[in-house]
């Protein structure tokens, strides 16, 4: 093991110990705040500081007691399903809009003001309106994620189209490409890395938003689960929820990054 590797493992460990220390300090000062060891027991099971036998949230994630009481695995699945549904819808709608905005000056002039105005609105501001329209928790969450995800996809797709160099378009002109051939053979390959950057951004924000959205909509999902644990005074589970949400977000980002690299011609053949 070289010194770089040692640094990479030892330094985060030191920070981890420091965080535990601060955490213990807070638990000491704030009454009823879960200690690290209580939280560990709540996650993986065992005997907690009060001497009670506990089943860990993470050691029994698959249980289903009834419609409203399911293990954390099912909560996460529910959230991921909504995120993916909204995300895929946003891709299907956002990429064509982005291509259109990028290729046509008129489309850009027509749509840009609205993109710029709606983009900075927190998707949660839409949530009550969507709830009113759909009267359904799932549809509301999915459409909230759709609105969250669509802006970075539109903007980055349009950016990708704009980055197509005039030289490539000249090649297309000399070969007399039809508009469709131009899109498929030139514009899309150039734009794909940009589109994936937009998708990666979208997915990251969508995962941030779903937690808050589910706290508002209730029912099932990791966001609601965290909120529910607050109401049940299970504060240690909130911490477990935070860590789980973080880990999943991290994994989503890595997977999305790998997929993006796979489709990015600029990352190929340079190694």
């Amino acid at each position: 093991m070289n010194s770089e590797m040692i640094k990479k493992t030892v330094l985060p460990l030191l920070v981890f110990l420091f965080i535990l220390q601060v955490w213990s300090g807070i638990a000491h000062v704030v009454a009823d705040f879960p200690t690290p060891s209580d939280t560990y027991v709540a996650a993986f099971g065992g005997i907690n500081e009060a001497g009670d036998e506990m089943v860990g949230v993470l050691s029994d994630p698959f249980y289903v007691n009834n419609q409203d009481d399911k293990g954390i695995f099912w909560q996460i699945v529910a959230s991921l399903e909504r995120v993916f549904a909204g995300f895929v819808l946003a891709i299907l709608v956002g990429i064509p809009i982005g291509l259109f905005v990028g290729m046509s000056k008129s489309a850009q002039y027509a749509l840009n003001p609205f993109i710029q105005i709606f983009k900075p609105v927190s998707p949660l501001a839409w949530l009550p309106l969507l709830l009113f329209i759909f009267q359904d928790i799932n549809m509301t969450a999915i459409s909230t994620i759709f609105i969250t995800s669509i802006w970075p996809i539109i903007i980055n797709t349009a950016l990708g189209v704009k980055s197509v160099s005039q030289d490539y378009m000249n090649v297309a002109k000399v070969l007399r490409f039809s508009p469709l051939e131009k899109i498929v053979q030139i514009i899309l390959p150039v734009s794909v890395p940009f589109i994936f950057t937009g998708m990666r951004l979208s997915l990251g924000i969508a995962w941030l938003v779903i937690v808050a959205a589910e706290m508002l909509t209730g029912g099932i999902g990791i966001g609601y689960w965290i909120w529910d644990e607050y109401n049940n005074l299970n504060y240690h589970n909130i911490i477990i929820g935070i860590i789980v949400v973080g880990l999943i977000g991290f994994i989503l980002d890595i997977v999305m990054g790998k997929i993006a690299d796979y489709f990015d011609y600029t990352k190929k053949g340079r190694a």
Partner: protein
Amino acid sequence: MSEKFLSLEGIEKRFPIPGKEDYIAVTDVNLEIKKDEIIAIIGHSGCGKSTLLNMISGLDAQTKGAILLENKHVEGPGPERAVVFQNHSLLPWLSVYQNIEMAVKKVMPQLSAPELRDRVEKFISMVNLEHAKDKLPGEISGGMKQRVGIARALSIQPKVLLMDEPFGALDSLTRANLQEHLMRIQQNVKNTVIIITHDIDEAVLLSDRVIMMTNGPEATIGEILEVNLPRPRNRVELQSNPEYIRCREAILSFLYEKFAKDDE
């Protein structure tokens, strides 16, 4: 062989400048190019060489005059006037093979799969790039890229090959190497070629006629020089050839005495 193969008749190009008078880049350009002729266009930077070539390729439209190819008006770009761009313009996500294949497929949709493959491979070997055919443009040298550009342009069987300073970005050794490639290809399959260059030796070495342009604005053809050198030409032997020396001097005198550019 028709004498009137490609003709430029009274070509003018003016660029509108917002808030000012139009900029007339070139004016009154008249030129007849024979089939299988190699024409070099030389002139100081900014005189309108690229502008002229872009009008022949159809990527830009003239504001006056007519361009006729085999007695037909040239309107808009098309594969019968293939262009080799200065910066090669290969599609970086396609391999060498795929870059050529894309062009052949589009221009000759009637080819069967084996015919297509044979044609692409023929043009890859024409520029000696068999070993690099599966590489991406990012993985090969500048000279190799330009060779692919030439192969791509020739693969679609153009009536005219248009080259805008095709070797301008290359070092002099690679440049010489590409000139040899071009002459060898030309020896085997005749093409009508218009090549823009800044390089006097390149103009004389490659061409049958050198078109010398006056300085802009309102640039036009100043002189036309016939290069009466037999082919194949050998760059080393040419150095002492009186005709070669005469041609060089004629161009030198045109560019640096008659139409010297003092702001350079």
